[in-house]
């Protein structure tokens, strides 16, 4: 009976492969749909490139010119002359780097302890930290502002960076990673006389590298792109990060669209480049972190 089934199964598999090849025609439809979709998705970026190289008159002409008559590369130079672009860029980089490093440090340590150490009050502390995940950010924003103001940190890097050094999501992410690790390595290291810090640092942390990179990627994206907090704690354009700086640019006094387009492209570029380089890791990481 089983053999019979096998004999039946063998030719059908081949038939399926053949059918699939024959079906090649329908892949054309798939490519048409996916290609058209991809064009729609990419259009705003392409359009931004086109407009960043146009003159203001071309941007505002009623019949769009799909390619500028004379590419205005000077628009990119103007970004640095007319806007505090470099200052804002530097601010964005500093905020992002500091936050990512701090989150990796604090979240891996706490995530590890919550996953693999026993101590009194652990369930309560863990519940308290994770409860934040359910609370919309507006609920703590006002008071965070008040704290930063009381510390005299408004309009400063310290104020911009502060609450984002700590992440409940990161802790949750790292705890999940450490929970899934085998006990054996840890036990072996302990028997060899390693103290808890050495076990964490030498054995567990290297194992957690994939999840740490997910944490680094998500917190980079979040920090680089965040708008509301920088908008709230900073008043002077020169001290804002790019996300908020660009948003204030559009206040209708600026109608120099090509320069704004060039600035926007330059602001998105680092993250886009990072993503294209690391795409496999980003996509897999985000998909798995989202699903857990």
């Amino acid at each position, binding site marked *: 009976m089983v053999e019979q089934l096998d004999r039946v199964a063998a030719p059908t598999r081949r038939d399926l492969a053949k059918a699939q090849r024959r079906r090649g025609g329908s892949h054309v439809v798939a490519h048409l*749909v996916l290609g058209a979709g991809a064009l729609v998705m990419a259009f705003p970026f392409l359009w931004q490139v086109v407009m960043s190289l146009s003159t203001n008159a071309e941007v505002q002409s009623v019949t769009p010119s799909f390619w500028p008559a004379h590419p205005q590369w000077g628009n990119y130079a103007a970004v640095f002359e007319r806007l505090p672009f470099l200052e804002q860029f530097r601010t964005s980089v500093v905020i992002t780097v500091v936050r990512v490093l701090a989150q990796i440090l604090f979240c891996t340590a*706490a995530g590890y302890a919550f996953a693999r150490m026993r101590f009194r009050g652990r369930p309560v502390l863990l519940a308290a*930290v994770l409860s934040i995940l359910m609370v919309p950010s507006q609920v703590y924003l006002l008071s965070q502002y008040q704290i930063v103001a009381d510390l005299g940190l408004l309009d400063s890097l310290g104020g911009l960076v502060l609450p984002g050094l700590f992440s409940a999501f990161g802790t949750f992410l790292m705890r999940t990673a450490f929970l899934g690790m085998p006990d054996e390595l840890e036990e072996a290291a302990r028997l060899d006389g390693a103290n808890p810090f050495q076990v964490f640092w030498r054995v567990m942390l290297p194992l957690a590298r994939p999840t740490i990179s997910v944490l680094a990627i998500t917190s980079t994206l979040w920090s680089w792109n965040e*708008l509301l907090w920088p908008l709230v704690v900073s008043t002077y354009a020169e001290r804002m990060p*790019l996300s908020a700086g660009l*948003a204030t640019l*559009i206040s209708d006094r600026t109608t120099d669209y090509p320069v704004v*387009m060039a600035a926007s492209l330059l602001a998105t570029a680092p993250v886009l480049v990072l993503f294209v380089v690391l795409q496999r890791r980003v996509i897999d990481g985000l998909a798995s972190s989202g699903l857990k």
Partner: protein
Amino acid sequence: MSEALPARGAGREPARGRRVRRDGAWPWLFVAPLTLGVAVFYLWPIAQTAWYSLTTFGVFGGTTFTGLGNYAEILGDPTLYRSLVNTLLYTAIVLLNIPIAVCLASLLNLPGLRFAAFYRVLYFLPYVAMPTAVAMVWRIIFNGDFGVLNWALGLVGIEGPYWISTPWASIVAVAVVGLWSSLGFSLIVLSAGLKNVPPELYEAAQLDGASRSRQFRSITVPLLAPSTSFLAVVTVIAGFQLFDLLYAVLGTTNPALPKSLSLVYYFYRAGFVDNDKGVAAATAMVILVLVGLATAVQFRLQRRWVRG
């Protein structure tokens, strides 16, 4: 010190199982920085906001307890309801990204499809791009006078509205941007979900003579239910948080703004433009309740839809 500390724990924790160890004070060292940060910058502020929502801020500092006065004020404000409706309209439109992504993901999952990785990257780009930066180009695309959208609509004889400065149209426009930027994430999550569908199911269905669309309806859609319901929850929560795109696409001097607010924008305006912290805090608490309700309802629905 590292030797003295574990010794203290030794008496308290006899070696019962493998997981019971003598960690002494170590766990506290590991947990302290994060927990302190979270307590100071998140937990305490949550409590404080709840208190703020019951007080009125004096012009010269100091607060007075006013009970539910702030709540009465916002719940009697038509703009709050307008903001709620706008937020719901936005969320409803962005939810459309899920069915679109289901179709695209099933195409991307076709066996032997070439360039799949290339498509995936392109669809995902908007998700990682800075919202305020892409909002700039969308502003121009939606421009009523020289925007490429209205030009294209004009080609087929439709006169497009002034998208950005017409209240209802501005929400639709921002929702289109929201849909565009979240599609890639849904696609990735669904692709991961599709990988868990055993290919034998399709092979068997094919042998039984089921058409492609039949396979899509009877295999793909039901088996993706866990992914789609997860996406629905995430999209609704994100929808309630609408601010960045709205703020950046509409601009701050837009005449349509008062009628185009979202709940979070309403909160932002109360707290940081009008400087009415009590009202802003009450708004935040209302958002908290609404998000909680929406999530609870969805989990209830999810249980039915994923199992059924």
